[in-house]
């Protein structure tokens, strides 16, 4: 969370306030929060009027006069409550997103995607809206599609991804479950065996470890074990990977875990257009699909083609930025680092080719290998751990398929090999960064 809207002033200028009194309401993309006065005094001056949109975190919104102070002392008075404060002790899901340390330019507009017909109108929407629209469209199209998970209905989604679905489709098709991941994952798979098409939301993929047996053994293997008779057309979706400041148990990237399993498909989109087109494809796919979203990307806006039925093929990477000097391979939020680094490298005359894998299984390794043959250098970028990571597999495959084309070893930039620390500085160190990608790129270019 970086900004919010000042929805309402509860106190007026001149009102006496005590510490703890609610003085205003702030609306963010995730929740409505009350701002409390931190000092006793009089609400002297409102600096941000009601209805103001996009107030940045830490902007002073009012001044509270202590006893004896008056309007003329405004310049000396201390700013009072701040808008969009950090959320207090939220449910594990409601992680306050610290400002993203990486400021990456948006990906090349999706209009360059070969699947978009020329002249298609583009609309700007967040990844969150794109995901919601994808589910709503598929639910309108097919009555056997339903959504279940913790807080998906009445709460409108712990991250508001399922916002409005209950209102449109009713409680029969938008189902709040108890906190029972192993159980509802299995119930979803059983319903899929019987021919329904569940979209099961994990509040975050961290909690899917409770359910991993049902995902791997029941969903992933039954088609094979039944000799092709029984399918599980099911999507497991939710935010994956580190959010911000939620420490070790809530900051894990499952890209490598699930993409290890034959029988599963694994998708990890970056843009809103890909999120929409691939989630619709996932819901229609007859196989179990793990759909890895990212909390920090939920609020990020991208152009999305305005098409009646925007569905993308699963298993196809996208060249997000063309280049000839070095290949950067990423997916999901890893694209922030890759595109940010490409921008930096461009300033030094290095043309990086950035590949957004989009799907991790089946992986479009051909596109990666072709690019590596062209640039003769490859960097993989992921927030997950290095050992047995997705980058390790890509490196192995490039070695097997393009060894003779390589001018330098394939290099991995990844999350550090430690549990995620809480402290802001350590957390930043534990994650990959644009400078690390830039450094790796220069190293393989011997510059």
């Amino acid at each position: 969370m970086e900004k919010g809207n000042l929805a309402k002033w509860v106190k007026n200028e001149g009102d006496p306030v005590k510490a703890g009194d609610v003085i205003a309401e702030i609306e963010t993309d995730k929740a409505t929060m009350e701002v409390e006065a931190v000092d006793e005094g009089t609400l002297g001056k409102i600096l941000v009027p009601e209805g103001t949109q996009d107030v940045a975190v830490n902007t002073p919104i009012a001044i509270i006069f202590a006893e004896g102070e008056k309007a003329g002392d405004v310049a000396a008075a201390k700013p009072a409550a701040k808008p969009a404060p950090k959320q207090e002790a939220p449910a594990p899901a409601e992680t306050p997103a610290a400002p993203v340390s990486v400021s990456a330019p948006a990906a090349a507009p999706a209009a360059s995607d070969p699947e978009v017909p020329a002249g298609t109108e583009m609309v700007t929407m967040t990844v969150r809206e794109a995901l919601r629209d994808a589910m709503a469209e598929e639910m309108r199209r097919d009555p056997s599609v339903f959504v279940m998970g913790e807080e998906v209905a009445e709460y409108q989604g712990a991250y508001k991804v399922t916002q409005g679905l209950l209102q449109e489709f009713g409680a029969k098709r938008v189902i709040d479950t108890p906190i029972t991941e192993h159980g509802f994952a299995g119930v979803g798979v059983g319903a899929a065996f019987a021919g329904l098409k569940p979209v099961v939301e994990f509040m975050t993929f961290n909690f899917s470890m409770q359910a991993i047996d049902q995902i791997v053994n029941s969903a992933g293997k039954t088609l094979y074990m039944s000799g092709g008779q029984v399918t599980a057309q099911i999507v497991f979706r939710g935010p994956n990977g580190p959010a911000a400041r939620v420490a070790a148990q809530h900051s894990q990237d499952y890209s490598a875990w699930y993409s290890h399993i034959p029988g599963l498909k694994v998708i990890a989109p970056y843009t809103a257009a890909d999120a929409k087109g691939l989630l619709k494809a996932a819901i229609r796919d007859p196989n179990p699909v793990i759909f890895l979203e990212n909390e920090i990307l939920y609020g990020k806006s991208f152009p999305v083609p305005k098409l009646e039925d925007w569905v993308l093929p699963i298993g196809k990477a996208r060249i997000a930025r063309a280049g000839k000097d070095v290949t950067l391979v990423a997916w999901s939020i890893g694209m922030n680092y890759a595109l940010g680094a490409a921008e930096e490298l461009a300033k030094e005359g290095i043309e990086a080719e950035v590949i957004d894998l989009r799907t991790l299984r089946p992986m479009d390794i051909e596109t990666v290998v072709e690019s590596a043959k062209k640039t003769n250098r490859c960097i993989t970028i992921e927030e997950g751990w290095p050992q047995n990571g997705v980058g390790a597999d890509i490196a192995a495959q490039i070695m097997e398929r393009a060894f003779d084309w390589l001018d330098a070893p394939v290099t991995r930039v990844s999350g550090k090999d430690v549990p995620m620390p809480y402290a802001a500085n350590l957390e930043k160190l534990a994650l990959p960064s644009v400078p690390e990608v830039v450094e790796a790129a220069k190293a393989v270019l011997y510059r």
Partner: protein
Amino acid sequence: MPATAKSLDTTKDRPRGKDQGAAARPPMSAEQEKLAFREMLLIRRFEEKAGQLYGMGLIGGFCHLYIGQEAVVVGMQMAIEEGDQVITAYRDHGHMLASGMDPKYVMAELTGRRSGYSKGKGGSMHMFSIEKNFYGGHGIVGAQVPLGTGIAFANRYRENNRVCLTYFGDGAANQGQVYESFNMAELWKLPVVYIIENNKYAMGTSIERSHAQRDLSKRGMSFGIPGEQVDGMDVRAVKAAGEKAVAFAREGKGPYILEMLTYRYRGHSMSDPAKYRTKDEVDKYRKEHDPIEMVRTRLIEEKRASEDEVKKIENEVKNIVNEAAEFASHEPEPDASELWTDVTR
């Protein structure tokens, strides 16, 4: 509120299959009793043959025989309607035969042949027949319980009036996901009947050594799920309890638990050391409580079938099983290309 679970203390080793007199048991027609005899005998002979083929090296890996427990699945199958679903764990051959799956193709799956129900890729523990509404065959203890609950969820979603029979053992009754399922099934009033096949041993661990609450019919009480203990060695008792439970679930009243007090004669699997129970205990069940022998005796004594008629059924079953074994021994193995098929669709 549904009826509460009946209190029966299994710690005192309640007699199973002890014939308490015909009057104490709900009656079956002569035709039903003959059918039950045939179905149970088919499972018994099939399992004996599977044991032989295992010994000959034709069946590999894990092979869990159902011998002793036949009345449970046969009685329950007589209590459901066409279209109702069945799901169970890995001691599943009996459930498949009772669901009407072809013994030839079940046996061919056991021997890992291409005409097996799973093309030889599933084996003893993983077989399915959507046509016969049999949803497996699951190898992870307890995992089939949420799955069966999910099938019941689909029934309710579609309002198709179907009930899912979800079987699990006394061992699985200690798995957490069973209780996660109980909670959702009762919360959403799903049409599922949970059948706990309590054969007294989870592998080699007796329920006395592993269960704090040994009356497993009470395991749904904290969720408000009614349950009862049933003499699982008496097919009449199973059928009667099954009809009641299935009707309850079909009427939209939610799940029902039936604890079937039963016994397996053979080891947990084919590699059982048989050190955890006495031979006398096993013999006592075989001699005094055998589910098939009790029906056979009744058929003859009550003159519901002649000795010839019974022999005819026995011969018919013997032939079916021999044919299945013959077929399964000579079918070709799956083509090597099958390694790569059915991973995804």
